[in-house]
């Protein structure tokens, strides 16, 4: 690593020589063309999954912006973060970039909406953010004007975000726990920082802020339920080994489950490209999160809803998921061990039954099996029956699904499509 004096001495010379340079960067620290920094930034961009929001809608122009991010308050559109000077962030200084990611503030002083998970990215160090900036400086500039402000009144008044920030934003770098291992701390950093898992997996209050006392206990987002990642039995990862978690993140599949929907994207863009040691660290951290164990009683098999559900299951589901729900490892999810089945909210279960879903295909697990759709065939009461059946079979005991729940889910899905 070069010393500071060396860096500052070199850059003004470059500017004077008329060489093409981004004079704004001359004011910053760090050599923006240092390979190690750039590659670190590339990796962090993968871990933070910037592409998931910031890629253009077709996926042809990385980081070109324009995707609408659904929030409970309306759509927020992700900006262009390529180095284009007019429409991207090419003219932004390092300090300004850092302020966006770690303090939730735009260069003109307006507040960032937390659809951009800055409450998590704040935990990244200044160096890490600088590295991301360095990497983003090397991607192809895309001329793409994005109108970011598309929330309805009153949410589009960014100024009011200061209230939200006061309630929910705790700025500051990640603090290591000295009593924990380096591996645990690395996992914690990744989960609570760039990985921003809680952005989907932590329940939120009415204003969309995290309920920090229920961290990682599951949340319904974009028509899917991001499951509990604590050691909850049966709703969380209690029955998963560290290796199960690593496999799932690396390939999208393990002996129990298959990643689909938003998690399929996450695996595809982010965790399948992360180092195995980092995935192992994440597993260590997650397996250390205490979980509850409920002793809820399942619905009686004699209940008419369960009887109907059992009939539907035998005729439609068992040919893949087997009569005992165990599925086929890496191909058909194990319903008996499924967090999506056992979750408090049956959002994922209902929508997957109605509309089907394709699981992620990765280099390690290229098959990409897909669940077919049953919404055209089963009415609301029947979908409610079969989902209630799986939620109350094979040691599961979860709230029944009503026909009204299904009707509402159909409405949401139709609106989204």
């Amino acid at each position, binding site marked *: 690593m070069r010393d500071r004096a060396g860096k500052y001495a070199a850059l003004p010379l470059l500017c004077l020589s008329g060489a093409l340079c981004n004079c704004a960067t001359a004011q910053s620290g760090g050599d923006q063309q240092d390979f190690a920094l750039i590659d670190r930034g590339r990796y962090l961009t993968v871990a933070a999954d910037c592409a998931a929001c910031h890629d253009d809608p077709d996926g042809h122009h990385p980081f070109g912006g324009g995707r609408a991010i659904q929030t409970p308050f309306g759509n927020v559109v992700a900006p262009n973060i390529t180095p284009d000077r007019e429409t991207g962030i090419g003219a932004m200084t390092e300090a300004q970039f850092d302020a966006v990611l770690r303090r939730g503030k735009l260069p003109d002083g307006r507040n960032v909406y937390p659809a951009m998970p800055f409450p998590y990215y704040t935990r990244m160090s200044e160096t890490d953010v600088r590295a991301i900036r360095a990497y983003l400086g090397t991607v192809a500039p895309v001329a793409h004007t994005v109108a970011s402000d598309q929330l309805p009144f009153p949410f589009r008044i960014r100024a009011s975000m200061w209230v939200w920030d006061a309630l929910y934003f705790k700025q500051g770098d990640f603090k290591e726990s000295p009593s924990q291992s380096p591996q645990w701390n690395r996992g914690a950093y990744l989960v609570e920082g760039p990985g921003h898992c809680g952005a989907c997996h932590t329940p939120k209050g009415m204003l969309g802020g995290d309920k920090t006392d229920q961290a990682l206990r599951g949340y319904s987002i974009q028509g899917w339920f991001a499951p509990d990642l604590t050691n909850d039995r049966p709703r969380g990862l209690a029955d998963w080994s560290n290796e199960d978690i690593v496999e799932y993140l690396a390939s999208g599949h393990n002996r129990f489950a298959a990643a689909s929907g938003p998690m399929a994207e996450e695996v595809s863009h982010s965790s399948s490209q992360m180092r195995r040691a980092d995935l192992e660290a994440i597993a260590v951290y997650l397996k250390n999160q205490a979980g509850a164990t409920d002793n809820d009683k399942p619905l009686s098999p004699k209940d008419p809803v369960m009887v109907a559900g059992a009939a539907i299951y035998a005729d439609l589901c068992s*040919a*893949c998921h087997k009569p005992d729900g165990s599925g086929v*490892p*890496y191909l*058909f999810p194990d319903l008996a061990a499924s967090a999506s089945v056992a979750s408090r909210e049956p959002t994922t279960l209902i929508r997957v039954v109605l509309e*089907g879903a394709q699981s992620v295909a990765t280099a390690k697990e*290229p098959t990409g*099996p897909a669940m*077919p759709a049953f919404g055209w065939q089963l009415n609301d009461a029947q979908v409610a029956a079969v989902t209630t059946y799986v939620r109350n079979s094979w040691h599961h005991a979860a709230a029944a699904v009503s026909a009204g729940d299904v009707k509402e889910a159909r409405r949401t899905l139709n609106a989204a499509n």
Partner: protein
Amino acid sequence: MTTRLPAKDAVIVGLGWTGSILANELTDAGLDVVAIERGPWRNSATDFAPNYAQDELRYRIRHELFLRPAQTTFTFRNKMAQTALPIRNWGAFMPPNGVGGGGVHWNAETWRFLPTDFTLRSHLTQRYGAKFLPADMTIQDWGVTYDELEPHYDRFEYLCGTSGTAGNLKGRIQPGGNPFEGPRSRPYPTPAQQQPFSHTLFGKAAQGLGYKPFPQPSGNLSRAYVNPLGVRMGPCTYCGYCEWFGCANYSKASPQTTILPVLVRKPNFLARDLCEVTRINVDGSGGRATGVTYVDSSGQEFEQPAQLVILCAYTIFNLQLLLLSKIGTPYDPTSNRGVIGRNFTHQTISDVESFFDSSKFIFNPFIASGAIGMCIDEFNGDNFDHGPHGFVGGGYMGQVQTNGRPIETTPVPPGTPKWGAKWKQAVRENYLSALKPGTGVHGSMYSYRDVYVDLDPTYKDRFGRPLARITLDFHENEIRQNRFLTDKFAQIFQAMGAKQVVKQYRLAPYDINDYQTTHLCGGAIMGTDPKTSALNRYLQSWDVPNLFVMGASAFPQNAGYNPTGTLAALAYWSADAIRTRYLKNPGPLVHA
């Protein structure tokens, strides 16, 4: 106006089994490959979902997954003296359409040919003398041996996860398998499927008669499997909606379930669906292919230039394209000259229905897979002495009943009226206790001078091009073969305890209405002599060295087995030659 596209290293016509195999091999070799498929993309969850795939009317009766004759068909006649007429709706065979081709809706019966099948003329001449063979029988040696193909058979079986019991491991006969099969280097990748009641009984009865029954090798897997490409399959659930249908739970080997998930991820691969190749283009000399011309679903024409053209369409589509592109000399049966269209064959199929005491036998025929069954091979190929019998060839036979789908499976004893109260009662009484194997006797069809394909003089396809014309009839040799085999087959059902056995011999004339498997073969055959074959032993065109033609169209005659295992092995064999020899030094691989 034809749009000329950027050149590719290789263009593959048809994305079925051989197209998928070749695309995967060539992309692995670093080539930039495009595959062009006439039909639509299809896949399990959206096209064969387990909540509507089980529709006999739609898929078996109305042929929904197959090519529409309106899109292309063939004309047919038994004899040269007749006028060929269009096949207006399919009957005797079911041409595939769409990504996956026949691999989507096949039975998944996965056989190897016998070693002697590949050296047929030499072998039969040596054993019985040249005069034993009919004068107009045009069987030939293939130019490749079983031993050369063995590693490639193995490769295909491990790609598919084929379920079976080996009968011959490196020369040692194994109990429970086919004692007649050629030696295999290792066991099947998964164990044989379980056999339902009637199939098991057949095996026992066959054993009692001194035969050596074995389970049919099945691409409907007995257990979950991950193949060498990392693609996973599930276990077959014996649903009885196999052949004619797509598999809904990833348990039937098909391009979709074994290759395509890996293939489509490669940056050097692209597939176009709903695009029909209308011509293989050759340069002025006629000795080099420059690419293909195709038409998309809007009718727009495109030219796809390529260094290498691999023709991977179904048998007759290959022939039609070669004839229309004027590649290779068309076969003329009168002068016995030319190669394209020569040695065209089908299969010699017959059935035996049997009726059992319904108070003693409940067969549940609906519990089955497409490749279920106990079979015997004593009467296949030259596995027995034909001397006393006056014919050559043979086939496997077995209780291979794949389904109890009621529209096609309501057997009633002979003499039962075809409608009315008596018919209804007979159907009611016999459904669970009658057997109808279907392709129970699966006999060979050898090739003849007057059985061939050429272009029709009258009927045209939707582009105004001549349809292919099939001239096909049974010869005495196959009729005798079938009578002999069917009689043997019937004896086994008798031994099972049937109260009535009804033989349904295969009789001439060949009938285009009656389904007899889709195993059309030949017409662009491989061989050692360019005067009597279209391809050399690597499936490379003798006339156009940068054109290779895959599929059963390469078979000089058809053996007594389903063809897919062999055409897939040939595809791997050819791909190996392309990768290890042709690409390093493009040009003829064999100098005749």
